[in-house]
């Protein structure tokens, strides 16, 4: 099993969810986060006062999938979250040791 964690532009969230559903992804966790990467930040101007905002708002999604599905999920996220401009985000893929469904106690593949 793999955990796919992606940092994306907030307005791309719906596109990503729609791209993942047909692949059989059954669940997804979404967090609103802030951070910086190559995009660094942006400048805001209020009555002439310029503020450099270092941490930009992003959305983090986490989805746990069977290992054979991971590559498709990554591709789907890449395609859906892509704008071609700086700040599109990153995808991290991690191994998952164990999964437990709290309600039933099912584990691993059954719990996904």
């Amino acid at each position, binding site marked *: 099993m793999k955990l796919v964690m992606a940092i994306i532009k907030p307005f791309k969230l719906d596109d990503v969810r729609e791209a993942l559903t047909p692949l059989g992804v059954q669940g997804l966790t979404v967090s609103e986060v802030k951070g910086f990467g190559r995009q660094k930040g942006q400048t*805001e*101007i*209020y*009555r*002439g*006062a310029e*503020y*450099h*905002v270092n941490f930009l708002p992003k959305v983090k999604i986490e989805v746990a999938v069977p290992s054979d599905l991971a590559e498709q999920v990554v591709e789907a996220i890449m395609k859906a979250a892509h704008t071609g401009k700086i700040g599109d985000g990153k995808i991290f893929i991690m191994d998952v040791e164990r999964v437990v469904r709290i309600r039933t106690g099912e584990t691993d593949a059954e719990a996904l």
Partner: protein
Amino acid sequence: MTGPSMQQTKSPWRFARALPLALPMLALSAPAFAADAPKIDTGNTAWMLTSTALVLMMTIPGLALFYAGMVRKKNVLATMMQSFAICCLVTIVWCVVGYSLAFTTGNAYIGDLSQFMLQGFAKTWNNDFLLGGSADETIPESVFMMFQMTFAIITPALICGAFADRMKFSAMCIFMVLWSIIVYSPIAHWVWATTGWAANLGVLDFAGGTVVHINAGVAGLMCALVLGKRVGYGHDNMHPYNVGYAMIGASLLWVGWFGFNAGSAVAANGRAGMAMTATQIATAAAALGWMFAEWMTKGKPSLLGIVSGAVAGLVAITPASGFVLPGPSIIIGVAAGVGCYFCSTTVKNFFGYDDSLDCWGVHGIGGIIGALLTGVFAFGPLYGGSGGSAHQFLLQCYGVGATLIWSGGMSFILLKIIDMTIGLRITRDEEVEGMDITLHGEQIV
């Protein structure tokens, strides 16, 4: 000097001048003259009651939202608290001595204490109240006093923009009470009372360009200078909590300003209509002026910019509204929008003072632009005067200068005294943590 004095007798405040003479006369001889005495005009009274409510709405919630939207999240409630508390404090001050010092006979510089605690109302509450001797223009004195009270409330509340994020609440309460008595009442007396020296000189101020805006603006500048900059000013991110609040606040100010300006005709008449017309036009022109100036210099037209421009236009047209035609209203508006934009950005940055929400940059500068241009564009037939002229322009300069000196000087002294006794400023830690939680024990989560 016949010109200016004639203008004054036709000014919207002429009934205030008639008051000290009229009241004793009414009290003594009401039965004998009952048939001839002017009646309370219900139309005018209805409009003035409405205007009073509109002007109160400018402070709460208008100004409270306008300012609160521009401060950081940790100071939003404290900023709203300032406007609301000033509304309550000045109401009491105005009742006890403020109205009496501003609008009774006294001398050329200040009124007397004959209306201490509004004691005259016990006898005169239902009397006709002369509006310049014309029988069809009367409102009760209580309505006049209330209308004026809402002006006395908003003026100190405007100052809060200059010391946002860093003044002790206790110091603010004391400063505002003393400022209302020592600065506001005398200046209102000079300009709007029968015996005031500025009124008799012929200085034109329809709805309070000098009394309200220049007065609050320069007092704000003194606050910014005496209190010093906010911690982190110039390098920390101080982005506004919610520009949407500021937009709602500015819109409430705009709507309320029809009471402020058109209400200053003190009648539901043609001049009130012209004041409302000039107000709307100048405000739109100033909003566009600020928007285009910002668009051209900074690359983007911002919401905060366009609403700031609207407020600048409202300020500038205040002294002019009952004196000018629609065409000049556009010129006054554009001058205010562009002028206030540069003063609130380039000029402020050049000198480095932290007039946090641009009390001086918008109200001081906008008020000065409006007061001076009133002397240029005043249209004689509208008020039965001689219209704009070099002489009138100089009179306006005189009024502006006197207000700057008295308000600036007295505000500076008051601030210094409070600073030396109880202290003006919150501690650095309190400032960093935010005034909502440290001064008021509540916060937006």
